[in-house]
């Protein structure tokens, strides 16, 4: 009985109450017409609820979101498949998916009758302009009656996760120069210089050319060994993102995140083996660099740190090229950071600051904020560019490579 009552909507309960009152009056006045009306009003919701709650069927719900990770501003498709695993045909079901409000309104579907063993799939698109990690679901299914007196809601448990990454701005591949690819320890140049070869022969596999057989090792091992000709070499780099709250004003933090994401994706595409370092230290890798980068940047928030020594320490211990996305820096921090660069590869520093046009002749006379830090970095052999908004990111990136003329000249001074 409680189940029946629980299934009633407010209207259904009002009907029962009004009907009970009318029926009581009808009995005590006594007036059969009134009693009839009362009985009708009471019977309607109760019978509806009884009928609805008696139809028992079981559904299973499978859901899929493609792609599970997408940049802000694009939309993903969500497919939900409801399978009827009972032997009854379902009645009319009203399905509603739980979607966070950032992703738009909740999609609703009407499923009119899934046959026994059948399934129904419906799709809808979600997308968000703001990065983040969103949980979509669970799906709710309602059984309603045609009078609006009954509403039985059941909820599935499965949910999908949608990661909305920062916007990725495509960056063009810079003109290669010797300084860019590789570093002193593991780069191509070292390979080219030493001509190192055949460090470890491996066992012969069907399909290897006979000319690659390494006879000496074959003699030693007693089986056919071949030279290993494919080279295992890596370009390592560290992407540094300054997330300190104080370093950014207004929406520039988002710009910094976008810039970091764009650069990181670009580097991953270029084959770098990179790591992500923020002012609080290195972000532990989860899967590939690209995954780590995007998952981290999707949910990253400004930190409350004032200094970034932890991050700089992490930069120092690792090797390879450093690409730094920076906000406003103090002179001391700039010096620390400048000192973190190792090897021959130049550090690249992208200043996310409100800035006028890039300086033509060194950072000292630059009107933008953070000129002093830029000066210090440039003096330490870094290439520095400033980006004030997302539209200029690609240009700034080109500028960093195209010569970083200003930077180099600054370095030379």
């Amino acid at each position: 009985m409680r189940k029946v009552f629980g299934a009633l909507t407010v209207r259904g309960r009002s009907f029962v109450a009004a009907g009970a009152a009318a029926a009581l009056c009808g009995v005590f006045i006594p007036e059969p017409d009134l009693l009839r009306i009362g009985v009708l009003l009471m019977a309607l919701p109760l019978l509806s609820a009884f009928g609805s709650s008696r139809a028992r069927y079981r559904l299973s719900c499978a859901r899929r979101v493609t792609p599970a990770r997408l940049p802000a501003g694009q939309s993903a498709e969500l497919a939900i498949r409801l399978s009827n695993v009972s032997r009854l045909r379902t009645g009319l079901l009203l399905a509603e998916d739980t979607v966070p409000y950032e992703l738009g309104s909740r999609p609703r579907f009407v499923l009119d009758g899934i046959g026994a063993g059948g399934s129904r799939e419906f799709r809808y698109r979600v997308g968000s302009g703001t990065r983040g990690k969103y949980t979509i679901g669970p799906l709710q299914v309602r059984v309603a009656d045609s009078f609006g007196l009954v509403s039985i809601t059941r909820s599935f448990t499965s949910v999908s996760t949608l990661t909305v990454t920062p916007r990725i701005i495509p960056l063009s591949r810079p003109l290669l120069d010797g300084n860019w690819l590789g570093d002193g320890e593991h780069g191509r140049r070292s390979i080219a210089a030493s001509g190192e070869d055949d460090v470890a022969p491996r066992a012969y596999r069907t399909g290897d050319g006979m000319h690659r057989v390494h006879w000496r090792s074959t003699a030693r091992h007693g089986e056919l060994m071949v030279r290993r000709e494919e080279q295992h070499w890596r370009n390592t780099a560290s992407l540094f993102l300054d997330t300190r709250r104080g370093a950014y004003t207004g929406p520039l933090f988002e710009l910094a995140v976008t810039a970091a994401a764009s650069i990181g994706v670009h580097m991953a595409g270029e084959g770098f083996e990179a790591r992500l370092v923020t002012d609080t230290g290195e972000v532990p890798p989860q899967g590939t660099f690209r995954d780590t980068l995007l998952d981290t940047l999707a949910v990253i928030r400004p930190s409350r740190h004032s200094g970034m020594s932890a991050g700089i320490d992490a930069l120092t211990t690792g090797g390879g090229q450093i690409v730094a996305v920076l906000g406003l820096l103090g002179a001391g921090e700039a010096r620390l950071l400048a000192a973190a660069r190792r090897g021959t590869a130049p550090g690249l520093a992208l200043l996310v600051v409100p800035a006028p046009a890039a300086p033509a002749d060194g950072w000292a006379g630059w009107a933008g904020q953070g000129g002093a830090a830029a000066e210090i970095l440039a003096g330490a052999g870094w290439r520095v560019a400033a980006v004030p908004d997302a539209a200029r990111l690609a240009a700034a990136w080109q500028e960093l490579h195209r010569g970083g003329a200003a930077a180099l000249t600054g370095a030379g001074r």
Partner: protein
Amino acid sequence: MGSHRRTLAAAAATILASVSLYPIFTGTLWFWGGAGAVCVVAVTGTLTRLRRLPPAVCLAAELAGLLLYLNVAYSSARSLLHVLPTPSSLHFLLVLAGEGFDEAARYAPPVPPLWGIVVIAAGGIGIIAAATDLIAVRLESAALAGLPLLALFTEPFTLSVSRGPVGTAIAFCLAAAGYLTLLSSEGRDRIREWEQPAPGPDEIPDTRALAAAGRRVGIASVALALCLPLLIPGLHVTRLFGGGRPGIGGRGGSGAAVVGFPDPDTQLSRELHTSQAAPVFTYRSSDPTPQYFQIYALDKLTSSGWQMFSQPESLVPASPRLPAPPGATNSTWAAKVTTTVRIGPGVGQDALLALPAPYPATAVFAPGSVRADRASLMLFDPGVRLAGLSYTVTSLDEAPPAQALNNAPPPPAGIAGHYLEVPASYDPLRALAQSVVREAGAKTAFQMALALQDWLSGGTFTYTLNAPTVADAAGLRNFLTVTRRGYCQQFSFAMAVLARLLGIPSRVAYGFTAGTASYGGTWLVTTHDAHAWPELYFQGFGWLRFEPTPQGGAAGQGTANAPSYTLEPASAFPQSPQSLSAGLPAGPVGSSGRNPASLGERLGLPLGGAGGAAAVPATATVNPWAVFGLCVLGLLVLTAATPPCARLAVRRRRWRAARRRGDAALAHAAWRELRDDLVDYGAGYLPSESPRALAARAAASLSLAEPAVAALRRITLAEERARYAGRPDSGAGLRHDSAVVRRAIAAAVPRRSRWRARLMPPSVLTPALAGLSRVADIFARLNPEWSGGTRLGWIRPRRARRGRAGAAAARPAGAAGGPEPPAMAGAAGSPAGPPSPSGSRRA
């Protein structure tokens, strides 16, 4: 789109609800007027919804449309171009409406189809339609739209007009159907609008199945609402708004409901004393010598006179049949008389509280809700206006011979207890009464009554209107012994009291005499025909009228006459009852066997017999509710016994048929019997299971013991050989094996399953229910998934699943394994099936 549908539904609901007004009006003019108004309002409403106007504007537009419609329909001659309202046409409409209100006040329902009334009706229905439309469509709250419809439906109720049971049922069905359609239409619209990315016009969800389900619920609810009030005993209509007149009984049931009744005595004297006889009613009767018209019967003798002792519970609706007249079991000498009464136009609403009708009336056909007092057959029609009222009464004209009356047995205790009560103050008159009877030599009750009547009307007493009203014992003694002058009030009072003192149940009736014959076979009854007379009770004949008042001309009541049975020549005083019955061997009493006693014997009912010592209570008739209850009980028992009997019959037929056809048939019979038993006991079977697999599963899941397993194996083997081998095994022991297996299964399952298998074997019930639901589907073009599917599924999957999962127990809920593609991420869809969280099923 949805709003159009709902507009239509609202209009239909209003029209259907307006049907319930039919008892107020005569003719159908009002209905068409109202339907037209509803249509106009609906069209206007649709037009207003083309733009999103505020509700008040919508209402105003609808009312304006209604006014235009009324103007065109009823005042077009004065309108510009017969369409546009002009001041004169509107004035005419106003006058018409004013007339309508006057006419409504003047006429009792049903009112004639006068223009004014039709205008009011159409306008009223139109206003209701506008309210309904506004609430249901513009404000999108169909549930609340029931309120204006309710006002329409209960209008006859507030006007105290009754529809009668059939009319009420039809009106209720129509009104409910309209309202439910409106509700359903709104609910379906809501579902159509549910989809969030709004679907294309060709993808609108199909809600027909839902509507069919709604129809089914609606029909069930309406049926329940119609039937339930019938099952509540003692629920009778009383009028809430009884036009200022007190309803009898009902309210509170405060015992002696003399309150609120004008004392009939004073009323009578006032009527008789008017110098001018005013016509009260005219009537036509099939009887050339019509009977008196009783209005009320005063049955309680108090020390301050006769009063009406009304029992509220004794008021029953007379529609049109009345309860049987009390005590009148012998209808040998009763002739059926039909009287059509037309009450004069000048009769005020308060002059008569009840309908005058000859006693005992058996049926009355009158507008409104006539109710009758069970004991006195007084007719009350509180719902109608009396002026101009016309009704027909069927009554009995009793003229039993004196011999039969002399033979009447003593009254039963129920009558005697109530109608023989005499306050002590009247006791001194007992000697007078006995002396009168003794002088006349009366022996039987009837003879005593005749003696009293003759004594009072015989000339000793003088008829005069100038006599004090008798109201107590002292006044009565004064009238009987001193003044000996009076009119009907005194005479009837006296005879009724004296009869009670002599042991004859009596009461005083008030009403009219038969009046005077008028032109063309009608009779005219005037105020001067108002009369009072005693009625005495004789078992077998009920209440019989006597006439103690002197009759005729100036010396008596003008139109009074003594009943025929008191006028028999030689009233047979000297004869004793014994000699009478002995002397009438071939008479109607003996030969026809219609005396109460033998009738009672034949019917098996305890009646007070002629020689019976113990008086039997009058209430010793069979209680209809008991009969009803017994019938229901019998039906229930029959219904409950059907499935097990059917199962037994199936089993016996199966074996008998198999025995005739040989070994293979026996094996098949054993196999089918096994399958049915498994179904009955909840183990189930799958059509795909081979005999061996089924046997193995049954043995394992039910953990059968050895002899049963052996029997099971034998049945299985026999079935296999019957199916596949060239020569089947001998089927000799199979029936025994089958019984062994059945017993083993019964022992293995829980008690609940065992009893269900015995009382409601699913192997019989499932096909029956499937057939039923199929019939239901055809009948109401129902959708299979709600009735057929559900009902079938209610039993079948359970069986099957039990069978399979008997040992398998609960699989993990998530593994319910719908066809889920492996590519789906997060495929662990928890099957929280909407109405049933799956666990409950498995447990």
